[in-house]
Structure formats: structure tokens, C-alpha cells
């Protein structure tokens, strides 16, 4: 009887490459609660997409899960076989991969594509699936006539809505959306985020929202996790993190965004994200950190709870320095 919907413990997901093993996700633990929007932030190459794929057991070679536990409603996903996973995917967990709006079949009507997705997982009569497809299209804010249209007749935002519609077709408990608004214009982005928010409320589902855009996280997340170089840097309520980022990396991410109406100088950091083939010793952020101390070069900081529900992996915070 777990309260959490999804619980990941010490997950390690690596890629085998000719020059060595890339440790894209290196010991990540997290728990997604019911009916929440859980954001994952971080820059390209920090492992956020790999984490999502690994957590859903969708990682393909050369990627593999080195170790870790993934519990979904108490079921250990690591122990399930293909058939077992098939039963859970789409019905319980659905996944919206990056740029999936470009994966619609160009020669099939929108309605038929949604129906196909339903029938691949449920043994329903066709007219029931069609009825469901009509409802879904309206639910995501598309006009009903889209059912009869082909993908090329739709704009990018509309295609993304079709993808969202089919992802919620079977009332999943968890929706994992990887950069769902990245290539879209701001007005369309706002519409899509609104729709995701409404879906969370009307279906009572949880959403894992992966995006590098901190402003999007600020707009709709309940909780936020910041990743750096395959590890969790900070995790907590989105309000707390934006109010007072504890990890120097989250702090920099916040101060790097220009905000309209504010007259502050934005700041970046020097250096570049580390190679995950051969990550730096100690804290992975230490070569770029403005607050680097001696201990950071030697010892890797563990993720510590520094306040209720507030976790940070940094030597500046936690029991030893308080």
C-alpha cells in the first residue's frame, strides 16, 4: 500500500559506446505522488530523457539499466516481462516522447490513428473506440471535425493535442511528457500547458513534465527536480526552489532567464557540462561552481533532506555544515 504512484530508487541507466560506458543517469531516486505535476529540469545531456525512458523500461540498446528499482503502484517494473509491460503501458502509464507530434501517420485520418492506438491495447468494439476518440478530441480542445482530417491539415499545436488525446485515451494514472511544447510558439505553448493542467485535474492523473525551460516549470509544476550530469542536484516544491534555490546550479539556472519588466543583469556560468564518460571527481558541478570548496573536489555530495520535502545534493547544505 504505497501512497506514491511511481517510486524510483537509485536508478542507473548507462549507454555502451565504443569508447566506454556513458553514465547518463547515475543513481537517481524520486517519487511521483498522485495528482501532481512533477517537473524535471536540466540542460541537454543531463540525463532527463534517459531517466524517463529508463523509468518506463523503454530504453533501447546501446542504453541499458545498470541497476535500480522502479515501483509503479507497488508493482516492480524491473520484474515485468514484455507482456506485463504492455498491459501497463498506455492503460496505466503513457509516454509522450520528444517531437512525437511529427510521428503521426501522414496517410491516415486523425480519428483512425487514435482508434488504432486504443484497439492495440483494449479489446473494444470499433464503434466504442470511435466514440471515445470523438470525446478525446474535444477534451483536448480540438474541433470535432479534426477526426476526419489528415496530419498535414493541422498546425503543430493541433498535432501535439492529437498526441495528448491519444496518450490519455485509456485514462492513465501517469503521463510522462518529454519537451511537449518545445518547438511551439508561445501562444500555442500556453494552450497546451493549459490542456495538460486541465487533464491532471479532470482525470486525476499525475504528469511528469520534462523540459529545459525553467519558466514553463514555474508556470505549472507542483514539484521540481533539477538534474545535473546524470544526478539530482535539487528536488522540492517549485515555489521553494524558485524562492530560494539552494544548489548553486539551480541558482544559476534561475538567474540566467531574462524576465520581462525586471531590470536585472542575467548571469551565466563559464565552462561546459562535464563528459559523462569520465565525470569529474567529487561533486560533478565543482569545476563550474562559484562556491567551490576543498571538500567538493574530493567527496561527492549526497542528496540530503534539508527541510520538509526539500532535497539538495551540495556540501554547502546539510547536517555537516549547519
Amino acid at each position: 500500500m504505497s501512497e506514491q504512484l511511481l517510486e524510483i530508487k537509485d536508478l542507473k541507466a548507462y549507454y555502451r559506446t565504443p569508447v566506454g560506458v556513458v553514465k547518463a543517469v547515475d543513481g537517481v531516486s524520486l517519487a511521483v505522488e498522485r495528482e501532481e505535476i512533477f517537473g524535471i529540469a536540466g540542460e541537454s545531456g543531463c540525463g532527463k530523457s534517459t531517466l524517463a525512458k529508463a523509468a518506463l523500461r523503454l530504453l533501447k540498446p546501446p542504453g541499458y539499466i545498470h541497476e535500480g528499482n522502479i515501483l509503479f503502484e507497488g508493482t516492480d517494473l524491473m520484474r515485468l516481462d514484455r507482456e506485463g509491460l504492455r498491459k501497463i503501458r498506455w492503460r496505466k502509464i503513457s509516454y509522450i516522447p520528444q517531437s512525437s507530434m511529427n510521428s503521426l501517420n501522414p496517410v491516415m485520418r486523425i480519428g483512425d490513428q487514435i482508434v488504432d492506438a486504443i484497439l492495440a491495447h483494449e479489446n473494444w468494439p470499433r464503434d466504442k473506440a470511435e466514440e471515445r476518440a470523438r470525446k478525446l478530441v474535444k477534451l483536448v480542445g480540438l474541433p470535432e471535425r479534426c477526426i476526419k482530417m489528415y496530419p498535414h491539415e493541422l498546425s503543430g499545436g493541433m498535432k501535439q493535442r492529437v498526441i495528448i488525446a491519444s496518450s490519455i485515451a485509456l485514462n492513465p494514472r501517469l503521463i510522462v511528457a518529454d519537451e511537449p511544447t518545445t518547438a511551439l510558439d508561445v501562444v500555442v505553448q500556453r494552450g497546451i500547458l493549459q490542456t495538460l493542467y486541465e487533464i491532471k485535474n479532470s482525470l486525476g492523473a499525475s504528469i511528469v513534465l520534462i523540459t529545459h525551460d525553467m519558466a514553463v516549470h514555474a508556470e505549472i509544476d507542483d514539484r521540481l527536480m533539477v538534474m545535473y550530469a546524470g544526478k539530482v542536484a535539487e528536488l522540492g516544491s517549485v515555489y521553494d526552489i524558485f524562492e530560494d534555490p539552494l544548489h548553486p546550479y539551480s541558482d544559476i539556472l534561475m538567474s540566467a532567464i531574462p524576465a520581462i519588466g525586471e531590470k536585472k543583469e542575467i548571469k551565466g556560468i563559464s565552462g561546459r557540462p562535464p563528459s559523462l564518460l569520465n565525470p569529474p571527481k567529487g561533486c560533478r558541478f565543482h569545476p563550474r561552481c562559484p562556491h567551490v570548496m576543498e571538500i567538493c573536489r574530493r567527496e561527492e555530495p549526497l542528496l540530503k533532506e534539508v527541510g520538509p520535502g526539500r532535497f539538495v545534493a551540495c556540501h554547502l547544505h546539510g547536517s555537516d555544515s549547519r
Partner: protein
Amino acid sequence: MNEATPLLEVKNLTKKFPLGGLLRKRYLTAVENVSFQIVGDKPNITTLAGESGSGKTTISRLILGLISPTSGEILYKGRNVLEMLKHDSLTYRKEVQAVFQNPFESFNPFYTVDRLLRVPIKKFKLANSKSDEQRLIEEVLDAVGLTSERVIGKYPHQLSGGEAQRVTIARALLPRPSLLVADEPVSMVDMSLRAGILNVLLDLKKKYNMSILFVTHDLSVAYYLSDNIIMLNRGRIVEKGDAKRVITNPIHPYVKTLIKSIPMPNPKRRWRETISLDNLEEKEEARQGCIFFERCPLSMERCRKEIPEMVEVEQNHWVACHSITK
């Protein structure tokens, strides 16, 4: 407005792309009757902003002479750019430089990155000796916050996106241009490195006495960087003027919607009301009246038929909307 000749003046610029159609030719109007200028008496940053399909990149490509206009003209320091490119292209190519979205497309992966810096030095004969060349390279790398040890002798794949983009900016600085056209130069660069590049651009404006035409879809970036802004919607200018004024006090209904939709990096200032906009793509043919007519909450009968004129509503703040002229 200004006594001095503008650095760049765009007059009634229109660009139509043929869409095929064997018997009855159809056209896509990417840019329609666009006019604006970049003042010549002091360096400034002018931003072309708009969503995808607004024509911002087409305008920058027209200015760079990469495509030719259907009608209208572009004047650089009072001289027609098309003429200049025909007879005196070296001067224009030297004084107007460009930086593009994907820095890696500017590099040949088989050569080290310093080649990108040495070619323009040769082409424009900027150095008399090897040591002169070295000094020039170090100077521009320093201006963009790089060191020669970090860059010289390296291959493009050894640089991060931010570093690569800094190198292409350094290259653009070599001939000491008067105008830098920067088309979405930070949209492929990671957040933590983006700020550094924006600050470099601000710095260069002063240090190199150089104006920048910045093309972006990101209005927060535009707000941070620009002196003037030109807001485009489907090929037409809908609002333009002082960037801070336009962005904090937008008048045109389209620009208002756009600015309201920008997510704020502050969870305490979340969107309150929900917005609804017709998602359907506008019909390409519907260009007789106001471009925003079908989606506009304020639309009147007049908007369907008449294209609104640009009106100055306050100092250096222009809007094209019938609702303000009545």
C-alpha cells in the same frame, strides 16, 4: 526623426514565394510592405520578433542579400543594397556580418575552428603578417570571452554549443562591421551558457560601436537586449518602437496575447485566466484587411477590408490597428 542617414533603411519590402500550381500561380506572402530603419548616429540593437512564419528570418535573409525581394528596397547608409552587392559587394560583405542559429553549420568538421577565423582575414586582407593575424584573432576571441588556448587547434566537435557560437561571433567581428545580423543566435544554446552570449552582444555594441539586428521568437530575450523592437505577424509589422515600451505596454491585440502567453519564471505570478484562441491556421488568401482580423477580440467591419496604417501612439511607439484610430 534623425538628421543623420540611417544605417539601414528598409522601405516597403515585400517577398512572395511561389507555391507551385502549373496554370494558376499561387504565392505565399512571407513579408509584406515592411518598412523600418536602424538609426545611424549611435549603435543600437533592433529586434525582429515574431512567431514561426512571421517573416522575421526572411527579412534578415533579404537584408543579407541571400534572397532578393519581390518589391521594395533596402538602403545601407543611403545606398541601395542590391546595387552594392552587384558592384561593390566586398564593402557590404565586410561591413554587414551575420551569425546564425546553429553555430556548427558554420564550421567544416574536417578543419580546426581557427580556419573559420583565418579565412576572413585573408579574404578581406585584414592582416599584413602572421603575428598581426595572431593578434587580431586573440583580440576578437577575447572580446567574446574565449581564450586562444581554448579554441585554437580544436575541432568543432570539441567545443560546446556556447563556445562554438562565440567563435562565430568572433569571426563576424574581424572586419569590424557596422551591422551584425544575428538570427536566433542563442536558441540552440543551453540556458546556463545563453546568458553569457547575450551579455557579450550587449558588450560588443558599446565596445565595437556596432549595431545589431537581432532576430528572435523569445520576447524575454528581446526585452533584455534590445533598444528597438519590430513585432511581426504573418509578414506584416503590427507594432514597433522602443522595446521596453512595446513589451511592457503592448497596444495591438495580437501583441497583447503574445506577451500574456510568455511563461514567467516565477511560480507566484502564474497565469490566472485561461485563454482561448482559434487554433486553426489562417487562410493564406485572407490578406485584404487586418492580418489578425479572424482571431481578434476587437475586430470590426472595417478590419476585414482595410489594412490598418501605422500610427505613432506615443513617442517611438507605433501600432497598426483600427481600434486606436476609430
